[in-house]
């Protein structure tokens, strides 16, 4: 049976169709775009909050989207243990909604960063990374102006202690260095999960590198993990 993905669409989302394409055409799963004015997700197994510039990034990235009607049901879905993944602006929205700790600040360079990066998979015991090998390095693009992950030291320590740091920016060889950090993120953090483990947020774009034609297939492992997880459950 196909996995049912719900992909949220806000005014200003621009990675919604890319994500839909990967889910439906690359992985042959069910993909449904869900307009932010909807009040219920309906029957879905995974919710993806895609990248883009919801509400033009007014006020703060993700700040206004958190109050869209659909987000109440996303919070309920997440609190019930449903799988939710936020990519780029989706990560920002999940932080603003309180589903993930911390926040994303302006890149320390003050510039929009659109380029390939490498990230190291720090946790493979998550539904989003179970198909990856521990420490696996993914070649994956970023495209953001506000991707500097920040939280207070206590929160960062708690994230480390609870194994919630899922991805860190690294060199092609998997070394976590300041030079490999494209935006000044605390502790090179590129992606985190919540304490329960069912919500993931990441700044890089796995949907932009899930096919050989796009220069890297490394992002596919995240979608493969989601499929693998549901096979185990079934």
């Amino acid at each position, binding site marked *: 049976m196909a996995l049912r993905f719900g992909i949220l669409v806000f005014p200003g989302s621009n990675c919604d169709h890319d994500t839909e394409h990967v889910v439906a055409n690359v992985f042959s799963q069910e993909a449904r775009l869900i307009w932010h004015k909807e009040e219920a997700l309906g029957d879905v197994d995974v919710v993806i909050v895609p990248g883009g510039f919801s509400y033009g990034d007014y*006020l703060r990235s993700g*700040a206004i989207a958190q109050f869209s009607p659909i987000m109440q049901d996303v919070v309920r879905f997440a609190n019930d243990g449903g799988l939710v993944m936020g990519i780029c602006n989706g990560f920002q929205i999940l932080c603003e909604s309180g589903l993930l700790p911390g926040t994303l600040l302006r890149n*320390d360079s003050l510039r929009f960063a659109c380029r390939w990066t490498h990230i190291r998979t720090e946790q493979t015991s998550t539904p989003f990374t179970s198909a990856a090998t521990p420490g696996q390095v993914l070649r994956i693009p970023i495209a953001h102006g506000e991707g500097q992950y920040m939280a207070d030291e206590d929160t960062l320590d708690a994230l480390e202690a609870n194994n919630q740091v899922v991805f860190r920016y690294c060199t092609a060889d998997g070394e976590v260095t300041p030079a490999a950090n494209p935006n000044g993120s605390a502790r090179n953090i590129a992606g985190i999960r919540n304490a329960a483990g069912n919500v993931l947020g990441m700044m890089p774009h796995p949907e932009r590198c899930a096919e050989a034609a796009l220069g890297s297939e490394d992002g596919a492992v995240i979608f493969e993990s989601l499929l693998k997880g549901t096979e185990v459950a079934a």
Partner: protein
Amino acid sequence: MFHARIFVTRRPSILEPEGRAIKQALGTLDYDEVTTVRMGKLADLEIDVAERSEAERIAEEVAEKLLANPVMEDFSVEVSPVETPTAA
């Protein structure tokens, strides 16, 4: 009717890159006396209630819920009466 002016600023512990860039520019203009610049946001609200205390309560609430992100920002609120409201 009351006017509420809400200032949102980055917490002092948080690096504020925009202010840092502006300070650098002021340095090139020879304003060496300016040692710190921190940028923030300003929101002007008109609130249609009879009591000042009610306007203050609403302004504080919207600042907390939406205008500021407590993870990285602080806010302050100033409330004053409005004689001639601005049309929306």
